[in-house]
């Protein structure tokens, strides 16, 4: 494995994965280190793929980020992207399939198999790939009325064409797991509740208690990754921001960071500090909305109103400083489209301090409302073991004792120059998640105030730059957790392939773990305590 670091001049960081030179891998794989993206690329054959992913996950403690399927002239190629921590480079395990080959091995047998599961099911639907050994492929992103053999992400598929869906089959019934006398499945959704996003949950029950929950998503699939192909960066940015409106800034930022890596754009310090401020403003608003949702699910009317008032205050504040209530149209490659004046910074800092006080008072009152706590404690438990094997991210994982935070692991924007705490709880129940949301909101307010009171001067944008061809990964800690945007650009600044792994995609996969063996009336509470977005998951 001499080629691992032979071309690398700067040795300030650990290069490659030294363990690759061990005897076990000798002659089986080829690895190169790419200094621009600080990543190690491992060329692997399909035969060794499962062993390699198992070794990275179980022996070396790498975490699976996302699977990228890319179609080049020679055929399909698969990249499994892994990360660990700031001192270890990202690892890309690349497998090039032969022309016309559509089969790859499935990771479903591994300890971390569940974290690959949905990626494989999605690739099966959208690219027509078959993952050998996967127990359940088909009917995932594309529902049962989608015609067989039409794979929208393939290059030969025209995104503007309309597909004639099959007529619904009235005899079709979803598969059920529970077989017992009197067992039945109660469907909830896709249209349910007051203002719920579209998704379906089938609660399998034998009477009072729900035994299993089988969720069904992708009712909102808008083909964002497909329609972004061929679009110029400024147009694709609209999609990156608008596929998930409640975390628009985080996803726009991840998209822009990928472009900045590809094109070698230096973002000015003021833009980095302001990006941190806006990212935390969004997190603060998102967490407040989730807290309001949890209070609402337990029918605690005054608390819902209090959290709702704070949420609307934050929306108005966003509109005042950024001209948009959901921070659309703010981030651009190379910086931001809009600066904040000094008075604006002071105003924001003061308002955020008030919001933090309000949230603290609300938390204090909730902690002593026993009827409220009864509904949350020991409800919807996700164990640490499950959180790891399913690759859960964000506040959900941190409530189950998994303390990963992209802002700490790979500091972007200005996160490297401030101190903040990543709250962790161990119980993994609804109350643990509520506490994490409250603590994170408080940390967000503190981080915002730190930068608002010591804002560096200078421009907020690097200005116009020339495009370069290339591919890169943009990574942020979105309000719901780690988000990965992988992007391949051509030299004209057009997007050739775009892959988004939103945090809700990882966390919805683990939702059924929390929704097992519970009473019917707890379902809205478990749902609210996850605080996830279907728009973000479905794309």
């Amino acid at each position: 494995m001499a080629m691992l670091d032979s071309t690398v001049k700067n040795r300030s960081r650990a290069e490659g994965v030294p363990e690759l030179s061990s005897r076990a891998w000798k002659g089986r794989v080829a690895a190169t280190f790419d200094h621009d993206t600080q990543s190690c690329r491992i060329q692997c054959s399909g035969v060794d793929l499962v062993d390699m992913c198992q070794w990275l996950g179980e022996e070396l403690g790498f975490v699976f980020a996302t699977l990228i399927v890319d179609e080049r002239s020679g055929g399909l190629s698969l990249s499994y992207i892994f990360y660990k921590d700031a001192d270890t480079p990202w690892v890309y395990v690349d497998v090039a399939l032969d022309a016309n080959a559509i089969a790859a091995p499935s990771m479903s047998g591994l300890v971390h198999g569940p974290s690959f599961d949905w990626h494989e099911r999605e690739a099966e639907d959208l690219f027509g790939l078959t993952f050998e050994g996967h127990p359940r492929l088909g009917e995932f992103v594309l529902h049962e009325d989608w015609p067989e053999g039409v794979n929208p992400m393939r290059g030969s598929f025209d995104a503007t064409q309309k597909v004639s869906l099959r007529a619904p089959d009235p005899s079709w019934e979803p598969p059920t797991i529970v077989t017992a006398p009197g067992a039945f499945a109660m469907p909830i959704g896709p249209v349910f509740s007051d203002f719920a996003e579209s998704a379906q949950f089938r609660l399998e029950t034998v009477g009072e208690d729900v035994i299993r929950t089988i969720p069904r998503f992708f009712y909102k699939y808008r083909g964002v990754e497909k329609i972004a192909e061929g679009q110029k960066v400024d147009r694709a940015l609209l999609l990156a921001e608008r596929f998930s409106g409640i975390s628009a800034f985080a996803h726009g930022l991840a998209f822009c960071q990928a472009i900045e890596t590809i094109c070698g754009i230096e973002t000015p310090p003021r833009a980095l500090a302001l990006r941190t401020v806006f990212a935390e403003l969004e997190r603060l608003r998102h967490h407040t909305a989730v807290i309001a949702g949890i209070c609402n699910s337990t029918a605690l009317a005054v608390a819902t109103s209090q959290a709702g008032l704070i949420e609307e205050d934050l929306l108005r504040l966003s509109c005042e400083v950024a001209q948009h209530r959901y921070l659309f149209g703010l981030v651009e490659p190379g910086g931001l489209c809009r600066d904040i004046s000094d008075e604006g910074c002071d105003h924001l800092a003061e308002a955020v301090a008030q919001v933090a006080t309000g949230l603290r008072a609300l938390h204090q009152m909730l902690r002593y409302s026993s009827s409220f706590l009864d509904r949350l404690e020991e409800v919807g438990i996700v164990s640490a073991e499950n959180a790891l094997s399913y690759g859960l991210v964000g506040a959900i994982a941190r409530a189950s004792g998994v303390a990963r935070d992209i802002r700490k692991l790979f500091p972007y924007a200005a996160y490297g120059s401030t101190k903040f705490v990543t709250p962790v709880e161990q119980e993994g129940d609804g109350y643990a998640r509520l506490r994490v949301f409250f603590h994170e909101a408080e940390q967000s307010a503190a981080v915002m105030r730190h930068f608002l009171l010591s804002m560096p001067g200078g421009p907020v944008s690097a200005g116009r730059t020339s495009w370069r061809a290339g591919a890169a990964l943009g990574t942020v800690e979105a309000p719901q957790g780690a988000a990965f945007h992988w992007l391949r650009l051509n030299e004209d600044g057009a997007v050739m392939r775009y892959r988004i792994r939103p945090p809700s995609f990882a966390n919805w996969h683990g939702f059924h773990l929390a929704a097992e063996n519970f009473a019917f009336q707890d379902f809205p509470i478990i749902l609210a305590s996850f605080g996830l977005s279907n728009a973000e998951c479905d794309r």
Partner: protein
Amino acid sequence: MANWVLKGVRTGIRTTSYPGRPEHAPGVTPGRPLGASFESSDQAESLVERCPTGAIGRNDDGVSVDQRRCVHCSRCRRGDGARAPWESSYEWAAHHDDGAEPAQRLQRIFGRSLHIRFVDAGACGACVSEARQINNPYYNMHRLGFFMTPTPRNADVLMVSGPVSDAMRLPLRKTYEAMPEPKRVVAIGACAIFGGVFGSTFAVSGGAAEILPVDIVVPGCPPPPLAILHALLLVVERKPPSPLTSLPPGHVTEPA
């Protein structure tokens, strides 16, 4: 529990006085671009070029704005070149066929009260969040006689957001068919009006009007809560509609 009651009482009334009096609190609306006249056609052309959705179009020497297509990207108010004037209004709702009166007047039937069923047909979440805010104490739709209902059987108004994804076509149509007559469909946001940034593709229909007879549209990306309240007030005929096209000053809309 007594401390919650006390907390509620201490908070006092925060609710807006709209529609009685206009709301001027900062940040209740992002505002929107207006039509404008320019000295040179280059300036107008630069605005037309910067608009990614074709909302801004040439009108003599100036530009007019088709509010239905605006996605609030703010590119026409920033950057190099001419800037579009900006208004901070929020009464944006209008009849789907601009200027056309509904065939059947509903005020008598509904009184002033409406029951609303909301369907998310592929929205990004921002429209859903803004629609949820009308239940927030700041906006409190209940004081105006508006209520959410979980079942379409009790609903007078179907509120739709999103470009209507393939999988939501059937649930959306079934929801509409389950509602008793008379009924109204309100399309919220640019996506529900024309597909928004998602357009009309293999995955989305390109607007609710492709599936259902839409009565009222609320432009915006997302429309603020007050614009959604305006749409409901338009349904019960307590407020007039707002023009969907903003023309350069001096131009007048031709009578329909």
